[in-house]
C-alpha cells in the first residue's frame, strides 16, 4: 500500500503520497498554487518562486517555495494569505517586466493580481525557468542544454555554444518553453510593451473561491500541471 502523509493546506486536510511536494499535493486536490517553472515528473529547482507558500510551524511561519517543500505529516500550509499574495504579485511583476512577450508570463501575472508594472519593461527572451534544461537532461538524458554564467549573465546555452551531435532534435525545449507562445495581441515591439491583462475574465476567481483550481484557460499557455495531466 502506498504510504501517505496528511497535511493541512489552507485549512483543508489533504492526503498526499509520502515524498511528494506540497505543490503536487495541492494540485492533486484542486487547490491552485500558481506556478511557472514546475513541470510534472521533472525535478523541481525552486527557480521562479511563484509557488511560494507559508509554512506554519513553531508559532511562526516561513515563506518557502512549495515545489521544493516535501509534504510531511502534520504540516500546516497557507497558500493564499495576504502576505503571500503580495509577495507573489511582486515576483510576477518582476517577471512580466522582464519578459512581457510571453503569454505564460502575462497569464501568471494576471493570475497573481498584477494591475500595473512599476518597472521599465525589458523584453528579454528568457526567464531562466530552466524547464528546457531539465527536460533535456532528465527526460531525454541528452544533456544538450545547460546554464552558463552567473547572475545577470546567466543564460541557457548549448555546450560551448554549439548545438552538439547528441541533441536528439526532439523539440521539447521549445515545447516546454513558456516564452514560445506570444501574448494574444501578437508580439510586442521594443518600447511598446505593456501588461496585457485581457484574460482577467477567464480566471473565474470569484472572491469566495480564491485559490480553487477551476482549470482556467490561463494554464494552457505554459502547460499548467492540470492541463498536462
Amino acid at each position, binding site marked *: 500500500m502506498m504510504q501517505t502523509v496528511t497535511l493541512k493546506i489552507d485549512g483543508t486536510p489533504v492526503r498526499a503520497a509520502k515524498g511528494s511536494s506540497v505543490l503536487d499535493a495541492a494540485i492533486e486536490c484542486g487547490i491552485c498554487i500558481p506556478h511557472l517553472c514546475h513541470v510534472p515528473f521533472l525535478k523541481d529547482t525552486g527557480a521562479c*518562486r511563484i509557488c511560494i507558500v507559508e509554512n506554519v510551524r513553531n508559532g511562526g511561519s516561513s*515563506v518557502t517555495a512549495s515545489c521544493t517543500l516535501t509534504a510531511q505529516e502534520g504540516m500546516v500550509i497557507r497558500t493564499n494569505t495576504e502576505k503571500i499574495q*503580495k509577495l507573489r504579485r511582486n515576483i510576477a511583476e*518582476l517577471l512580466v517586466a522582464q519578459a512581457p512577450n510571453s503569454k505564460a508570463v502575462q497569464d501568471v501575472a494576471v493570475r497573481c493580481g498584477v494591475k500595473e508594472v512599476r518597472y521599465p519593461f525589458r523584453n528579454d527572451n528568457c526567464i531562466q525557468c530552466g524547464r528546457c534544461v531539465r527536460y533535456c537532461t532528465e527526460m531525454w538524458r541528452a544533456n544538450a542544454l545547460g546554464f552558463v554564467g552567473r547572475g545577470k549573465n546567466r543564460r541557457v546555452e548549448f555546450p560551448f555554444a554549439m548545438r552538439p551531435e547528441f541533441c536528439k532534435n526532439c523539440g521539447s525545449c521549445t515545447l516546454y518553453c513558456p516564452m514560445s507562445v506570444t501574448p494574444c495581441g501578437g508580439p510586442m515591439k521594443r518600447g511598446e510593451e505593456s501588461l496585457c491583462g485581457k484574460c482577467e475574465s477567464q480566471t473565474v476567481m470569484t472572491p469566495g473561491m480564491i485559490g480553487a483550481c477551476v482549470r482556467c484557460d490561463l494554464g494552457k499557455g505554459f502547460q499548467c500541471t492540470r492541463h498536462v495531466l
Partner: protein
Amino acid sequence: MRKLEHFEELENLRKKVVAQREKIRSTVIICGGSGCKATRCLSVIDAVKKEIVKQGLGHEVLLRTTGCHGFCEQGPLMVVEPGNFFYGHLTAADAQEIVSSTLKNGEVVDRLLYADPLTGKKIKTEAEIPFYSAQDRQLLKYSKLLDPCSIEDYIAVGGYKALVKTLTGIAPKTVIEEIKSSGLRGRGGGGFPTGRKWAEARSVREDEKYVVCNADEGDPGAYMDRCVLESNPHLVIEGMMIGAWAVGARQGYIYVRNEYPLAVQHTRLAVKKAREFGLLGENILGSPFSFDVDVARGGGAFVCGESTALMTSLEGKVGEPRPKDIHTVKEGLWNKPTVLNNVETWANVPSIIVNGSGWFASKGTRGSKGTKIFALTGQVKNTGLVEIAMGTTLHDIIFKIGGGPKNGKAIKAVQTGGPSGGCLPVSKFEIPVDFDTLYETGSIMGSGGMVVMDEGTCMVDVAKYFLKFLQDESCGKCVPCRVGVDRMLEIVTDIAEGRGRREQISLLQELAETVAETSLCGLGKTAPNPVLSTMRYFADEYAAHVDEKRCPAGVCKELIHYDILAEKCTGCGVCLRSCPYDAIKGEKKKAHAIEEPICRKCGICITECKYDAIAVG
C-alpha cells in the same frame, strides 16, 4: 618522519622540540601574511636573515616568519623577543641597524617604534600599543607564536593537546555537551549554535558523515578566515578532528577560495605534515579513530560561501544553492549528514576542550559567548584585524582600537557583516556587538567585516556599491535575487543619478522586503540589508537625492558640480595642468574657472589645490 603511534610519543616530541628551543637567546618575529607581503615584507625578511648570518648570530637568534599579526596598517612589521619591541613600516635598509643594536646589544631603535597618533609619543613594546592592549586575542595570539609551515612549532605551543584529551577520555556525547554549554555559535554569520548542529548530525543514523570547513570568505574588506588559515592551519584541522570525533565522521574537507594562494599553500602543507606525523589518516595516534582532510579550492564565487552552494561546488557541480527545507546536517554533501562550520568556529573548538566550556562562556554576553575577530577597515587610523570579546561596544572598537577617524572628518556610520549586513549610524555606536543586538538593529554580525565611513561617504552610494557587488555575485538561479537585486540597483542608480522619484522609494522598500522573504538562499535573503538599513537610518539622504537632487556628502557625480572660488584662487595653474580632461581654463595670476560640460568630477584638482579654492556643490 616516523608516524607517531601513541599519545605519549606526541608528548615526547613536544618535550624534545621545547628543549631544542631553549638554546635560542632571542627571536625575531616578522609577519609574512598577505597584507605585509603586499608591502614587501619578503625583502625585509631576506635582509634580516642575511644580516643575522653576517653578524654571526645564526646560532642564537631565531627568525620566525609568521602569519598576520593583525596590525596591517603598520606593515611590514616585526616583534623582537625578549623585550617585546615592536617595529613598523620596515624596509630592507633597516635590517643592519636592527640586528646590530637590538639583537646584539638589546637596544631599541627609536625611529622604528610605533608613535601614538593622538599624542605622538613613541611606544616601545607591542603590549603597550592601544591597538593591541584593548583587544582580547585568543585565536590571533597564535599567529605570533608559530611558523604556519612548521608543525613542530604548533606542537611546541601545545598543539594537538585538545585532540589527545578528546581521544583519551571524552566520549563524543560529552564533547557535544561541552560545546553546547560553552555557548559557541557559528562564526560565519548565521550564528547557529554549534553544539546543536553537531548533536543533530550525530543523531542521524548514517554510516558516512562529513565535516566541512568553510573558508570561502568573500566579503569586501574582510580577511579573518584568511588570516587564521594562513597563520595557524593546524588549529583549524585540530578543531575539525574533534568535531569529526563528536559526530562520527571519517572525512573532512576544507573549502578555501583560490584567491587566497597563501592560505591554500599553508593548509595543504599542514595537511601533508599532519599525515606524515600520523595525526591524520588511519588509527590516529594508535587510537581506533580514523580521519582525513582534503583541501578543495573554490573558484571565486561569493555565493559558494553559502552552505548548500558550497556543498554543490564540492560535489563538482556548478556552485548553485539548493533548497534548504531539509537541513544540511541531515542531507548535505552527497546527501549525507554534513557539519559545515566556519574557519573561526573550528579554530575555537580546541581551546574550549582544553580550557573547558566555563572558560569560554565567561567571555561575552548572555546570548553570544567568546571572542570574535573583526576586520576593521575604512576611515579609521588603525586598520587591521581585531579580536574582541563579544559585547564590546562599537564605540570601543572604532575609537579605542581603531584610533578614531583618519582624515579629521567625523565618523558617520559603520557597515558590519559585509554585503549581507547593514549600516549603523553613530547613534547606535553604544550597542554591544553580539549576534542578537546587531540583528535587532537591522544589521548582522556576518563573518566580521567592519567598514568605517566618515562624512565624506554618501549612503546611497554605499547601497549602490553593495547592490552592484551582489548583482555580480548572485548565482542567478531564482527570480527574486537575479531580477529583484538588479531592479533594486536600477532604482538606486536612478536615485543616485538624479532621476529618482518619490514613489520609487516606497517601491524600493517593497521590493527589498519581497527579495528578503522569497529568495532561495541566504545570499538573496540578506541581499536587501544594505538598502533597508540605509533607508532606515539615513532616510534624509535618500530624500535629499530624490526631492532636492542634491548629494549631501558630495559623492554622487551626477548631482554635484565643481566651482573655483575666485577669492581663494591665486591663479597658480596647478589645477589647470593636473586636469586630465582640460576642463580648467584661466590666465596666470588670475582666478581660473571650470568648464562645466567638460568636467568629469574626478577630484584630482581638489587634491592638487593648495589653497582649498575648489568647492563641491
